[in-house]
């Protein structure tokens, strides 16, 4: 079973798992009532976004009472610290039905970790791309404003920005943004 509030990521993981010969018995995308979903789907493994609020529900469906044997969080059965570390960093966790062997669980978990890592680096690239785009815009605006105020050329305006950035030990995009905002307030 896959629980992920990020619908695209969850669906993609379910597809990957299905293609790898596993059967995804449930795909939970939003804040559904997990105890009933779990009771219906009876999963051997639940793969879930580490930050999902639904995890806390799984914690209880899991192994809280010492007298009851229930699914356990991956950490309890997995002594492979590196795998766990990679999972936490990638943002995925798993709950495993009591009795499912590590040998059977491990490959599924590896698929999930790899999937989450890929997703994470994609997001990082996107946000870097976005912020450099934004910065680009601010630099152009700042240059324009400087050219107008100081009556200087484009390259002079850019050197001025770069000097300010070096003096303040800030990125040029940051300096540009501050300058644009400041000039908006002043005017």
């Amino acid at each position, binding site marked *: 079973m896959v629980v992920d509030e990020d619908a695209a990521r969850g669906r993609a993981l379910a597809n990957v798992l299905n293609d790898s010969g596993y059967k995804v018995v449930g795909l939970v995308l939003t804040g559904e009532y997990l105890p009933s979903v779990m009771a219906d789907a009876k999963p051997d493994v639940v793969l879930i976004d*580490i930050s*999902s*609020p639904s995890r806390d529900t*799984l914690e209880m469906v899991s192994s809280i009472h010492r007298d009851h044997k229930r699914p356990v969080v991956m*950490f309890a059965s997995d002594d492979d610290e590196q795998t766990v570390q990679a999972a936490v*960093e990638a943002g995925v*966790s798993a709950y495993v039905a009591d009795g499912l062997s590590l040998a059977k669980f491990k490959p599924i978990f590896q698929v999930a970790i790899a999937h989450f890592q890929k997703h994470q680096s994609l997001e990082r690239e996107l946000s870097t791309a976005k912020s450099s785009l934004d910065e680009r815009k601010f630099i152009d605006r700042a240059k324009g404003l400087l050219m107008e105020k100081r009556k200087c050329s484009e390259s002079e305006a850019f050197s001025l920005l770069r000097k300010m950035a070096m003096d303040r030990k800030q990125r040029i995009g940051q300096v540009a943004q501050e300058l644009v905002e400041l000039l908006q307030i002043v005017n």
Partner: protein
Amino acid sequence: MICPSTPRLSTGKKTKMIRIEKPILRIGFVPLTDCAPLVVAQEMGFFTEEGLTVDLVREGSWAGIRDKVAYGVFDAAQMLAPMPIATTLGIAGVRKPTITALSLDLNGNAITVSNTLFEQMSEALPQMVEDRKLSAKALKNVIDDRKAKGKDKLTFGIVFPTSMHNYELRYWMASAGIDPDQDVNLIVVPPPQMVSFLKDKQLDGYCVGEPWNTVATLSKVGRTVITGYEIWNNSPEKVLGVNSDWADRHPNTHFALIRAVLKACDWIEQQEDCQPVVEMLASEKYVGALPEIIGLTMCGKYQFELGKHPELMPDFNVFGRFAATFPWRSHAIWFVTQMKRWGQVPEDWDERMIAEATYRPEIYRAAASELGINFPTQDYKAEGKHDQPWTLYSDDRDALTMGSDVWMDGQVFDPAKPAEYLARLRQGRGGVTSGKL
């Protein structure tokens, strides 16, 4: 600057040059009003003042907080007060030595039930509306009636198995002779989902922190029957948790972090107007709720009924006063007694050893001593003996004003005798108002 008053705490002029081992930190929090100390430390620059750059990261689940601290994704986090103990013992999931040297607040929870259940309870025992301590007895009557008629068990939501909420709700139920493991279903529900599950009748009631009780009342989905404060005055609630290895490797950073949050708690305490804190918390970055809703409990008022004046509850949240920031080992011992009571840990585990390993007042004192504030010199205190504020004296220092500490059923807790306390609780089921009703 929002704050016109002079902060009472300062590192003064004698600031020593200390090496902060890790000046850039990631700290996790859960969007509940009691993340206020961390938010204020960030927004008012107390982290910066201590040489720290902090990225406050909103986390959706308590399990996520636990795992990310255990595996170093977070340097520190707002934790449920029993969580350092539970994680150290590996009660569920990760087993990693985890400690706290700073409490973030006292109180802050309440028990809310659906409108239907509220009606049934107040029909079964009308006095419970005025005297909220009778609410557990009212619930007991409803449960007995349902049993007699062969109806399904009621279902209550808690936020995490090892939370004050769970122990509080169970304490309240057991005080009236309800067995929380037999007579009701208890399930874990993320706080933001409590209200909608109550509305959709998947839950009949829950115990949760703010703003989720007030939201239920204001949206006419449920009614609060009792607050955590009324179950146990000034009970522990959230702490700042770090893993034990991290604390060993970053002692100065840990001190700086504790000092920054201590200053924030003191700042909150000094504010005559609570609105600035409310505005900070309301932001999407933090709790993301309407200031009108957060502003009730954060300003010491509780809306028990829609359309009526909120009641004054000045101690609904306690951040700075009553030595609220101090990590009492006696609180840790109390948590272990509850873990035993409800079958989460074996009976023969030693409470005191667990308390000494997980709750670290010596670190608190080392950090706080540079601020020149007054703090307890003892690690343990009895509970249940004061129904009014009282005074704790510490060596060579001014008196410390402490809050009342009574339970709804008048029990007394001596941290030196946990086994006897536990035996009394187990015998005393049904104790609250027996004889009178």
